[in-house]
Protein backbone atom coordinates (compact mmCIF):
# COMPACT_ATOMS: atom_id res chain seq x y z
CA UNK A 1 0.00 0.00 0.00
CA UNK A 2 0.93 3.64 -0.31
CA UNK A 3 1.02 4.33 3.41
CA UNK A 4 0.83 2.79 6.85
CA UNK A 5 -2.57 1.23 7.43
CA UNK A 6 -4.08 0.60 10.86
CA UNK A 7 -7.24 -1.26 11.75
CA UNK A 8 -9.71 -0.83 13.22
CA UNK A 9 -9.87 2.95 13.20
CA UNK A 10 -12.07 2.90 16.29
CA UNK A 11 -12.58 0.24 18.92
CA UNK A 12 -14.88 0.29 21.92
CA UNK A 13 -14.43 -2.57 24.34
CA UNK A 14 -15.60 -3.54 27.78
CA UNK A 15 -13.20 -3.48 30.70
CA UNK A 16 -11.53 -6.85 31.10
CA UNK A 17 -11.77 -7.89 27.46
CA UNK A 18 -8.75 -8.48 25.19
CA UNK A 19 -8.18 -6.39 22.06
CA UNK A 20 -5.96 -6.73 19.01
CA UNK A 21 -4.82 -3.76 16.96
CA UNK A 22 -3.32 -4.28 13.53
CA UNK A 23 -0.68 -2.36 11.60
CA UNK A 24 0.30 -2.82 7.96
CA UNK A 25 3.56 -0.94 7.36
CA UNK A 26 4.82 0.47 4.10
CA UNK A 27 6.12 -2.34 1.93
CA UNK A 28 9.86 -2.85 2.33
CA UNK A 29 10.17 -0.87 5.56
CA UNK A 30 12.24 -2.78 8.08
CA UNK A 31 11.47 -0.68 11.16
CA UNK A 32 8.07 -0.62 12.85
CA UNK A 33 7.00 1.34 15.93
CA UNK A 34 3.98 1.42 18.21
CA UNK A 35 3.15 4.54 20.22
CA UNK A 36 0.30 5.53 22.50
CA UNK A 37 -1.15 9.03 22.46
CA UNK A 38 -3.31 10.03 25.40
CA UNK A 39 -4.92 13.42 25.90
CA UNK A 40 -2.23 15.82 27.07
CA UNK A 41 0.36 13.04 27.36
CA UNK A 42 2.28 13.34 24.13
CA UNK A 43 3.55 10.29 22.27
CA UNK A 44 4.50 7.41 24.52
CA UNK A 45 6.87 4.87 22.96
CA UNK A 46 5.67 1.29 23.35
CA UNK A 47 7.72 -1.09 21.20
CA UNK A 48 10.15 -1.04 18.27
CA UNK A 49 10.89 -3.74 15.69
CA UNK A 50 13.91 -3.51 13.41
CA UNK A 51 14.43 -6.23 10.85
CA UNK A 52 15.21 -9.59 12.40
CA UNK A 53 16.61 -8.11 15.61
CA UNK A 54 14.96 -8.73 18.96
CA UNK A 55 12.29 -6.06 19.51
CA UNK A 56 12.83 -3.22 21.96
CA UNK A 57 9.94 -3.72 24.39
CA UNK A 58 11.16 -1.20 26.94
CA UNK A 59 8.09 1.04 26.56
CA UNK A 60 5.36 -1.53 27.18
CA UNK A 61 3.54 -0.31 30.33
CA UNK A 62 2.65 -3.72 31.75
CA UNK A 63 2.68 -7.43 30.96
CA UNK A 64 -0.89 -7.06 29.67
CA UNK A 65 0.64 -5.48 26.54
CA UNK A 66 2.39 -7.52 23.87
CA UNK A 67 3.18 -7.16 20.19
CA UNK A 68 4.41 -9.35 17.40
CA UNK A 69 5.49 -8.81 13.86
CA UNK A 70 4.94 -11.70 11.49
CA UNK A 71 7.20 -12.21 8.48
CA UNK A 72 8.82 -8.85 9.01
CA UNK A 73 5.67 -7.07 7.86
CA UNK A 74 2.27 -6.91 9.60
CA UNK A 75 2.26 -6.22 13.32
CA UNK A 76 -0.37 -6.86 15.97
CA UNK A 77 -0.52 -5.09 19.33
CA UNK A 78 -2.50 -7.08 21.89
CA UNK A 79 -3.84 -5.68 25.13
CA UNK A 80 -5.17 -8.29 27.55
CA UNK A 81 -7.73 -7.60 30.28
CA UNK A 82 -8.19 -4.01 29.18
CA UNK A 83 -8.50 -1.26 31.79
CA UNK A 84 -10.03 2.21 31.45
CA UNK A 85 -6.58 3.79 31.59
CA UNK A 86 -5.74 1.93 28.36
CA UNK A 87 -8.10 4.27 26.49
CA UNK A 88 -5.98 6.22 24.01
CA UNK A 89 -5.05 6.50 20.35
CA UNK A 90 -2.55 3.82 19.37
CA UNK A 91 -0.26 4.88 16.54
CA UNK A 92 1.89 2.73 14.32
CA UNK A 93 4.80 3.99 12.22
CA UNK A 94 7.29 2.42 9.85
CA UNK A 95 10.58 3.51 8.35
CA UNK A 96 13.33 2.24 6.12
CA UNK A 97 16.53 0.61 7.32
CA UNK A 98 18.33 3.92 7.84
CA UNK A 99 15.47 5.31 9.96
CA UNK A 100 15.68 8.75 8.37
CA UNK A 101 11.91 9.28 8.32
CA UNK A 102 9.03 7.52 10.07
CA UNK A 103 5.63 7.40 8.40
CA UNK A 104 2.58 7.20 10.62
CA UNK A 105 -0.77 5.53 10.26
CA UNK A 106 -4.01 7.28 11.20
CA UNK A 107 -4.17 5.42 14.48
CA UNK A 108 -6.69 3.27 16.33
CA UNK A 109 -8.80 5.07 18.91
CA UNK A 110 -9.40 2.61 21.75
CA UNK A 111 -12.12 3.32 24.29
CA UNK A 112 -12.50 1.02 27.28
CA UNK A 113 -15.89 1.31 28.98
Amino acid sequence: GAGVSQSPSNKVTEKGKDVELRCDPISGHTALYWYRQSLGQGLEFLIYFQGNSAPDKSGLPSDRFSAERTGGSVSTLTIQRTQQEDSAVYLCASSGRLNTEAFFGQGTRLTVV
Partner: protein
Amino acid sequence: AQSVTQLDSQVPVFEEAPVELRCNYSSSVSVYLFWYVQYPNQGLQLLLKYLSGSTLVESINGFEAEFNKSQTSFHLRKPSVHISDTAEYFCAVIREGGKLIFGQGTELSVKP
Protein backbone atom coordinates in the same frame (compact mmCIF):
# COMPACT_ATOMS: atom_id res chain seq x y z
CA ALA B 1 19.62 7.12 27.11
CA GLN B 2 18.32 9.80 24.85
CA SER B 3 15.43 12.11 25.70
CA VAL B 4 13.62 15.09 24.25
CA THR B 5 12.26 18.09 26.13
CA GLN B 6 9.81 20.54 24.64
CA LEU B 7 9.85 23.49 26.96
CA ASP B 8 6.40 24.89 26.19
CA SER B 9 3.23 22.83 26.28
CA GLN B 10 1.09 25.62 24.80
CA VAL B 11 2.03 28.63 22.70
CA PRO B 12 -0.73 31.13 21.87
CA VAL B 13 0.16 33.71 19.24
CA PHE B 14 -1.58 36.22 17.00
CA GLU B 15 -1.70 35.78 13.24
CA GLU B 16 1.32 37.21 11.38
CA ALA B 17 3.43 37.24 14.54
CA PRO B 18 6.71 35.29 14.76
CA VAL B 19 6.88 32.09 16.76
CA GLU B 20 9.55 29.83 18.25
CA LEU B 21 8.85 26.36 19.59
CA ARG B 22 11.70 25.14 21.73
CA CYS B 23 13.22 21.67 21.75
CA ASN B 24 16.22 20.33 23.63
CA TYR B 25 17.57 16.81 23.48
CA SER B 26 20.05 14.75 25.39
CA SER B 27 22.25 12.18 23.75
CA SER B 28 25.86 11.17 24.05
CA VAL B 29 26.10 10.24 20.38
CA SER B 30 25.20 11.81 17.05
CA VAL B 31 21.49 11.92 16.35
CA TYR B 32 18.96 12.71 13.68
CA LEU B 33 16.37 15.35 14.63
CA PHE B 34 12.80 15.82 13.46
CA TRP B 35 9.77 18.02 13.83
CA TYR B 36 6.40 16.38 13.24
CA VAL B 37 3.05 18.21 13.03
CA GLN B 38 -0.42 16.97 13.88
CA TYR B 39 -3.27 19.16 12.58
CA PRO B 40 -6.64 18.87 14.33
CA ASN B 41 -8.20 15.45 13.77
CA GLN B 42 -5.40 14.35 11.49
CA GLY B 43 -2.43 12.00 11.70
CA LEU B 44 1.20 12.84 12.32
CA GLN B 45 3.26 14.07 9.40
CA LEU B 46 6.89 15.05 9.04
CA LEU B 47 7.49 18.81 8.93
CA LEU B 48 11.28 18.87 8.60
CA LYS B 49 14.38 16.92 9.58
CA TYR B 50 18.07 17.29 10.23
CA LEU B 51 20.28 14.38 9.23
CA SER B 52 23.61 16.00 8.40
CA GLY B 53 25.12 18.93 6.53
CA SER B 54 23.66 22.42 6.87
CA THR B 55 22.43 23.03 10.40
CA LEU B 56 19.49 25.13 9.15
CA VAL B 57 16.65 23.13 7.63
CA GLU B 58 13.44 24.44 6.13
CA SER B 59 9.96 23.17 5.41
CA ILE B 60 7.82 23.98 2.40
CA ASN B 61 5.38 26.07 4.46
CA GLY B 62 7.87 28.56 5.90
CA PHE B 63 9.03 26.84 9.08
CA GLU B 64 12.72 26.43 9.80
CA ALA B 65 14.76 24.77 12.51
CA GLU B 66 18.41 25.08 13.43
CA PHE B 67 20.50 22.28 14.86
CA ASN B 68 22.74 23.64 17.60
CA LYS B 69 25.09 20.90 18.77
CA SER B 70 26.70 22.91 21.58
CA GLN B 71 23.31 23.74 23.10
CA THR B 72 21.74 20.40 22.11
CA SER B 73 18.75 22.26 20.71
CA PHE B 74 16.59 22.08 17.60
CA HIS B 75 14.16 25.00 17.95
CA LEU B 76 11.42 25.51 15.36
CA ARG B 77 10.71 29.01 14.07
CA LYS B 78 8.42 30.82 11.67
CA PRO B 79 8.65 34.59 11.04
CA SER B 80 4.92 35.04 10.39
CA VAL B 81 2.29 32.45 11.34
CA HIS B 82 -1.11 31.81 9.77
CA ILE B 83 -4.33 30.54 11.27
CA SER B 84 -3.74 27.29 9.36
CA ASP B 85 -0.55 26.66 11.38
CA THR B 86 -2.69 25.86 14.42
CA ALA B 87 -1.65 22.33 15.35
CA GLU B 88 0.37 20.27 17.78
CA TYR B 89 4.08 20.10 17.06
CA PHE B 90 6.33 17.27 18.21
CA CYS B 91 10.11 17.26 18.33
CA ALA B 92 11.77 13.85 17.96
CA VAL B 93 15.26 12.38 18.03
CA ILE B 94 16.82 9.14 16.87
CA ARG B 95 20.37 7.88 17.10
CA GLU B 96 21.74 5.51 14.51
CA GLY B 97 20.37 2.05 15.14
CA GLY B 98 18.12 3.35 17.87
CA LYS B 99 14.45 4.13 18.29
CA LEU B 100 12.52 7.35 17.57
CA ILE B 101 11.76 9.23 20.77
CA PHE B 102 9.31 12.14 20.97
CA GLY B 103 8.92 15.15 23.18
CA GLN B 104 5.65 15.91 24.97
CA GLY B 105 4.41 18.17 22.19
CA THR B 106 3.67 21.89 21.90
CA GLU B 107 0.19 23.08 21.06
CA LEU B 108 0.43 26.12 18.79
CA SER B 109 -2.74 28.19 18.75
CA VAL B 110 -2.86 31.02 16.21
CA LYS B 111 -5.52 33.64 16.86
CA PRO B 112 -6.84 36.27 14.41
